[in-house]
C-alpha cells in the first residue's frame, strides 16, 4: 500500500526522505530501486498528473482567460497547487522593504513539488563550474569535480529523458554515448536567431530539456541504470514503455498526463512505488529532525496537515530534500541541547550563501517574421534552441567587469494566444482600432521574441536566511526571514545581458520593445524570482566552513543527508535541476554503500 496515512507508518524504514520533488524523487527512486525501505513525507497534497492535468484546455475555458491571479500566480493552468509566491497560512519574512534586498520564495504544496511545472531546461554544469574559486578566486570550489558527477548526469539523462545535442563547446559538456534524445527541429524564429546571433559572435545551439522526443530506450538503458539488479531493470524497463513520446501540443508547465516530460510524479515515483519499497505520506509537514542519545538522528516530527496533529516517524537515515530553504528551515528548527542553533549547524553556516539565478529580460519585434503563413509552432513548448555562455576567455582576461557567465533562453513562435498576447501594441500600431487593429494583430502575431538571460550569482555574506524570532506559521513553526544583496558581478552581468539582447534584436532587423536597461541594478530581477534558489547547507571539504561533505552528508550528524539544492556551493548559470538529480543519485548511492557496510 504505497500511499499510506500517518497511522500506517511502520517502524522499519531504512530511510526517510523529506520532500518529493527533483531531489526527493531521485533519492527515493535510487534508494528503493536498490532495495532500501523508504518513507517519503511530502508537505503538500497527493497529486495525480494523469487525471488532473489540463491537457488541451484553452484559455477561454478558464476563469479570466487563464490569467495570473493571487491564487494562481503563473496563470490558471500552471501546475502549482496551494502555493506560489505565497502559501496560505505559511508566511515568510523580508528583512527589509528595500526591493534590492528582497527574496521571493516559490513553494507549492503538492506531490512532486515544483517539478510538476518547471521549465524542463536540463543543463549540465561544466568542469569550470565545480572549481570556480580555483579559476577566478571568487566563491567556493565544490569538494568534487565534473568527472565525479558525469556518470550521474549520464544516468539521470537516461532515466528521465533529455533532448539535446553534443556540441563540444567550452564548459558545456557533452553527454555520454546514447544519453541524449534528438532535439526537436528549431522553429522559424529560432533559425533567424541562430543565423543573426552567430553573425555577431553569439552561439546558438540545440536546447536541452526533459521532454521525450521519442520513447526511451527501454531495451538498453535499464542495464546501464541498474547494473547487476535485474528486478530494478525489469521495473524501469516496464515503466519506460508506459511513458509516451511528446505529441507536440499543450504547454509543459501544466504538467503532462502522457508522461512525456519529466516531473517527479510521472518519472521517479511510479517505478519507485512499483518496487514495493516506498511508502508515501502526503500532507506531512516535517518541521524537525530529532536527535537520539547516541548523537544520531532518530527520526522526524511532522504536522499532519489534515488533522493538525503532531506525528513522528523514525528511520536509520534521514534525507532532507525539501527544497533549499525549507531544508534550511527544518535544520534551524531542529534545536537540541547538542545543537542550540539548529541541527548540523556547528559551523554556523546553515542558511548561509543562499543564491538564485541572475535574471534579466528584454523583448523585441521582428519585421521579417510578420505575416508568416500558418505554422504549428507549439513544438516541445519552448527552448528548442538556446545560447550557452560564450565569453569565457574574455571574462577570464578581466575584460567584462563581471566574473561569471550567463546563458540565453528565447521565447518565440506562433504560440496559442493568451489574454495578454495582443496587449500594449500601441508602440507598433500607433493606437489602431477597428478593422485596422485586426489587420495589425494578424501582421504582428508570431513576430515577437523574448530574451531571458540566466546568469551565475556568486555566493555572498549578505544573502542568507534565518529563523524569524517572532513570526510562526499556522502550525506554530518558526518561519524564515530572508536577507538579500547582489554584488557588482551580478548587476554588471545583467546590464551586459541587456546590451546583448539589443544587439541580437538589431542583428535580426528588429525593434526593441522599450529600451535596454544600462543600469544593471534596475535590469536585474528580484532575488528568488528565478526559482533557482540553492545554497544554505553548502558542501565543502572543511567542517568549519561548510555543512555537508561531497555526498550531502552533514558533518555533524552522520545519518542526516541533504540531497536538494541547498548543498550547492556555487550556482552556475545552468539551471540547477539536472545537477540536483545527479547529486541526489550520487548521495543515495553513497547512503546505500554505507548501509551495506553497516556504517549507518
Amino acid at each position: 500500500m504505497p500511499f499510506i496515512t500517518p497511522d500506517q507508518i511502520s517502524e522499519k524504514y531504512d530511510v526517510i526522505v523529506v520532500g518529493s520533488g527533483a531531489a526527493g524523487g531521485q533519492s527515493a527512486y535510487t534508494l528503493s530501486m536498490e532495495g532500501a525501505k523508504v518513507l517519503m513525507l511530502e508537505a503538500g497534497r497527493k497529486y495525480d498528473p494523469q487525471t488532473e492535468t489540463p491537457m488541451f484546455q484553452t484559455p477561454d475555458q478558464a476563469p479570466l482567460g487563464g490569467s495570473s491571479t493571487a491564487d494562481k500566480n503563473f496563470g490558471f493552468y500552471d501546475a502549482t497547487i496551494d502555493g506560489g509566491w505565497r502559501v496560505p497560512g505559511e508566511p515568510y519574512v523580508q528583512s527589509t522593504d528595500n526591493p534590492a534586498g528582497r527574496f521571493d520564495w516559490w513553494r507549492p504544496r503538492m506531490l512532486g513539488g515544483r517539478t510538476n511545472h518547471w521549465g524542463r531546461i536540463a543543463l549540465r554544469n561544466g568542469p569550470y563550474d565545480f572549481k570556480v574559486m580555483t579559476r577566478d578566486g571568487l566563491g567556493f570550489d565544490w569538494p568534487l569535480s565534473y568527472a565525479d558527477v558525469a556518470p550521474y548526469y549520464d544516468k539521470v539523462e537516461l532515466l528521465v529523458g533529455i533532448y539535446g545535442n553534443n556540441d563540444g563547446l567550452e564548459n558545456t559538456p557533452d553527454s555520454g554515448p546514447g544519453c541524449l534524445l534528438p532535439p526537436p527541429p528549431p522553429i522559424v524564429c529560432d533559425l533567424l536567431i541562430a543565423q543573426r546571433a552567430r553573425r555577431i559572435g553569439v552561439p546558438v545551439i540545440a536546447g536541452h530539456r526533459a521532454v521525450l522526443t521519442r520513447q526511451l530506450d527501454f531495451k538498453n538503458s535499464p542495464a546501464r541504470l541498474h547494473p547487476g539488479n535485474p528486478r530494478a531493470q525489469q521495473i524501469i524497463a516496464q515503466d519506460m514503455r508506459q511513458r509516451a513520446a511528446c505529441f507536440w501540443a499543450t504547454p509543459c508547465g501544466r504538467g503532462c498526463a502522457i508522461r512525456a516530460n519529466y516531473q517527479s510524479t510521472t518519472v521517479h515515483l511510479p517505478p519507485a512505488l512499483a518496487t514495493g519499497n516506498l511508502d508515501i505520506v502526503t500532507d506531512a509537514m516535517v518541521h524537525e529532525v530529532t536527535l537520539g542519545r547516541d548523537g544520531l538522528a532518530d527520526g522526524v516530527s511532522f504536522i499532519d496537515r489534515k488533522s493538525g496533529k503532531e506525528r513522528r516517524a523514525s528511520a536509520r537515515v534521514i534525507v532532507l530534500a525539501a527544497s533549499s530553504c525549507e531544508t534550511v528551515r527544518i535544520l534551524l528548527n531542529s534545536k537540541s541541547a547538542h545543537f542550540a542553533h539548529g541541527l548540523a549547524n556547528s559551523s554556523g553556516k546553515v542558511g548561509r550563501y543562499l543564491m538564485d539565478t541572475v535574471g534579466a529580460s528584454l523583448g523585441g519585434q521582428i519585421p521579417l517574421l510578420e505575416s508568416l503563413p500558418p505554422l504549428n509552432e507549439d513544438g516541445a513548448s519552448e527552448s528548442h534552441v538556446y545560447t550557452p555562455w560564450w565569453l569565457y576567455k574574455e571574462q577570464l582576461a578581466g575584460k567584462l567587469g563581471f566574473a561569471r557567465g550567463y546563458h540565453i533562453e528565447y521565447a518565440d513562435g506562433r504560440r496559442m494566444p493568451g489574454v495578454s498576447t495582443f496587449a500594449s501594441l500601441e508602440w507598433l500600431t500607433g493606437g489602431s482600432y477597428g478593422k485596422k487593429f485586426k489587420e495589425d494583430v494578424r501582421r504582428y502575431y508570431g513576430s515577437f521574441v523574448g530574451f531571458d538571460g540566466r546568469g551565475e550569482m556568486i555566493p555572498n555574506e549578505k544573502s542568507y536566511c534565518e529563523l524569524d524570532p517572532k513570526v510562526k506559521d499556522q502550525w506554530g513553526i518558526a518561519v524564515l526571514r530572508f536577507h538579500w544583496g547582489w554584488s557588482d558581478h551580478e548587476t554588471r552581468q545583467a546590464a551586459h545581458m541587456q546590451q546583448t539582447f539589443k544587439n541580437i534584436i538589431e542583428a535580426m532587423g528588429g525593434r526593441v520593445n522599450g529600451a535596454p536597461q544600462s543600469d544593471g541594478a534596475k535590469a536585474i530581477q528580484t532575488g528568488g524570482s528565478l526559482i533557482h534558489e540553492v545554497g544554505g547547507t553548502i558542501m565543502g571539504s572543511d567542517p568549519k566552513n561548510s555543512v555537508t561533505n561531497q555526498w550531502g552528508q552533514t558533518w555533524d550528524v552522520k545519518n542526516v543527508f541533504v540531497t536538494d539544492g541547498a548543498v550547492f556551493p556555487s550556482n552556475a548559470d545552468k539551471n540547477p535541476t539536472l545537477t540536483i538529480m545527479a547529486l541526489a543519485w550520487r548521495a543515495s548511492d553513497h547512503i546505500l554503500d554505507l548501509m551495506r557496510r553497516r556504517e549507518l
Partner: protein
Amino acid sequence: MDRRTTIKWMLAASASMPLISKRAPADVVTSKVPVLKGYGTDPILTRDYRRGELWPLVMTDTQRRTAAALCDVILPADDVSPSASSVGVVDFLAEWVSAPYDQQKYDRTLILRGLAWIDTESKRRFGKSFEAINETEQHAICDDICSEKRAKPRFARAANFFARYRDLTAGGYYTTPAGRKDVQYIGNVPLKSFEGAPRSVLQKLGLADVVMRTLPQGKLT
C-alpha cells in the same frame, strides 16, 4: 515557468499588462460589490468554467450595451472573423471586472468609469448614448482617445481607459476559437512528429541553410 513559458511569452509579445499605477483614478466607482473570494489555490483545472459561476457579474444592462458597442468598434466583424460581442467578449469583460483580485478590482474602476465617460461624451457631442450613435460618430470619439501618446491632455484619462479596454477586448477575443482562427493559430493538436517549418518558408526567409549542430572544429555555421 514552463512554469515561466506562458509568462515569458506574454512578456515577449508585449509589455505586460499595466499593473496598478499612479494613474489609478483617485475616486472609486461605487458599485455594490460584496467581498468575494476567488477560485482558491487548488481549483479543478480540467473543467470548463462558465462566466459568472465563480463570482456574480456586476455589469448592469446599460454598461453591457455600451461595452458591446465599444468592443465592436475595436474588433468589428470583417471578411475574416466575427465581431467581438458576437463571440462572448462582453461576458469575458463582465467576468473580468467582477473578479475579486487586485488587478481586476483596479480594472473594474477604470472600465466602469470609462464606459460611463464614453456614454456621457456621446450624449454631449451627439445627443445619444454611445450604442445609439453611428459608426462615424463612434469613430470621432475613439479617434480622440485611441492613442495614449497622441491624446490631448483633456482626454488623457479616457485614453488610458481605452488602451486598457482595447487590451482586454483583444484578450477576450483572441482566446476564443474564432480569435485563434483569425490569427491562424493551428496548434494545440496532437501530432505524430514535429518537423519544423516547410523548406519553402525557410527558403523565402533565407533560413534554409541554418544548421543547429556544431561542426567538428567547433565552428558554428
